């Protein structure tokens, strides 16, 4: 079982380990546009690259990737994983031109899920969780309706939307949203009602303490959003 409670040096909330476990299993399953083995390969590439994030890209030890992923998918997994502050529209358009917008978004959803889980393990002082065993199955290839252009590099949900933009950034692949934002709810925001409150009583830390951490992590990654 992934994210077993016994791996952690101190007790971790059951809802958090349950969310991590579910999202981790999702990585190994066929998604909307990528197969299970392809998704695990994306996660592996992002992890290997991010571990070497303090080295410049040209001097990282990558070896030969053990995957048949398209070259642009390999590049995207590595760059989103390790160098998020160097992403720009021109680069994304080049990747999307080859992969397609929905395949790019799903790839990003796998990378961000992997990075969040890995960073949590590093913060807790435990080894990274072994990547899930890839499962067989075919992608569903379902493209949601109600997508539109709000100035992002990819289409996002534009119908019936009143929440923060970042929560719809991956909406071209709803399964990817569920996988990652399940972890967001358990590890940060709580329910939508919790999130709207400026004074939190559903977490041991105060909201200013949580938001100071969030702001510092965002700034270290030079994330404008």
């Amino acid at each position, binding site marked *: 079982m992934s994210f077993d409670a016994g791996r*952690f040096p*101190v*007790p*971790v909330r059951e809802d*958090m380990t349950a969310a991590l476990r579910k999202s981790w299993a999702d990585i190994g399953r066929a998604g909307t546009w990528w197969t299970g083995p392809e998704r695990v390969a994306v996660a592996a590439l992002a992890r290997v690259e991010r*571990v070497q994030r*303090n080295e410049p890209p040209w001097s990282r030890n990558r070896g030969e990737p053990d995957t048949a992923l398209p070259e642009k998918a390999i590049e995207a997994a590595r760059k*989103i994983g390790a160098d998020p*502050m160097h*992403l*720009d*529209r021109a680069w994304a358009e080049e990747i999307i031109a080859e992969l397609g917008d929905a395949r790019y*978004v799903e790839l*990003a959803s796998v*990378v*961000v899920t992997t990075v*969040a*889980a890995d*960073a*949590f*393990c*590093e*913060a*807790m*002082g435990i080894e990274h969780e072994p990547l899930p065993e890839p499962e067989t199955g075919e992608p569903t290839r379902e493209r949601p309706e109600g997508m539109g252009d709000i*100035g*992002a590099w990819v289409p*996002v949900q534009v119908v019936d939307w009143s929440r*923060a*933009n*970042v929560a719809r*950034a991956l909406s071209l692949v709803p399964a990817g949203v569920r996988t990652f934002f399940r*972890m*967001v709810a*358990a*590890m*940060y925001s709580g329910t939508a009602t919790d999130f709207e409150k*400026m*004074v939190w009583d559903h977490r041991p*830390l*105060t*909201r*200013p*303490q*949580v*938001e*100071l*951490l*969030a*702001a*510092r*992590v*965002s*700034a*270290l*990654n*030079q*994330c*404008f*959003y």
Partner: protein
Amino acid sequence: MLLRASSQAVGAEVDLTAAVEDAADGGVEDGAVLTAFAEAVVRAADDLDAARARALETLGPAKFVEAAATVGIFNGLVRVADSTGIPSDAMMLERTADVRGDLGFNRWAGASASGVAEAPA
């Protein structure tokens, strides 16, 4: 910024430079311990073990886990925003207009997605 809004909600005034300075407390309880912990994780710093131990000792197990979870999930959230070029929310841009330039945020690559980019320093 949710940091400023949540501090004001409890009658406190936060120093937002804590977002961009090392080991700054920003006027938040145990802030310096929290930011030093976040910095060590993000940078994979040599002092990560020490920063983690200090965080656990200062905060206690339950708060320490929440801090680790916040650091973890925000490493994912920043990549959601920066890999999709999602524009910042209009309300957030309006509420941070007075501080973004001073803190250097408008010089980051992602600022262009929100139409407020300045030339890098």
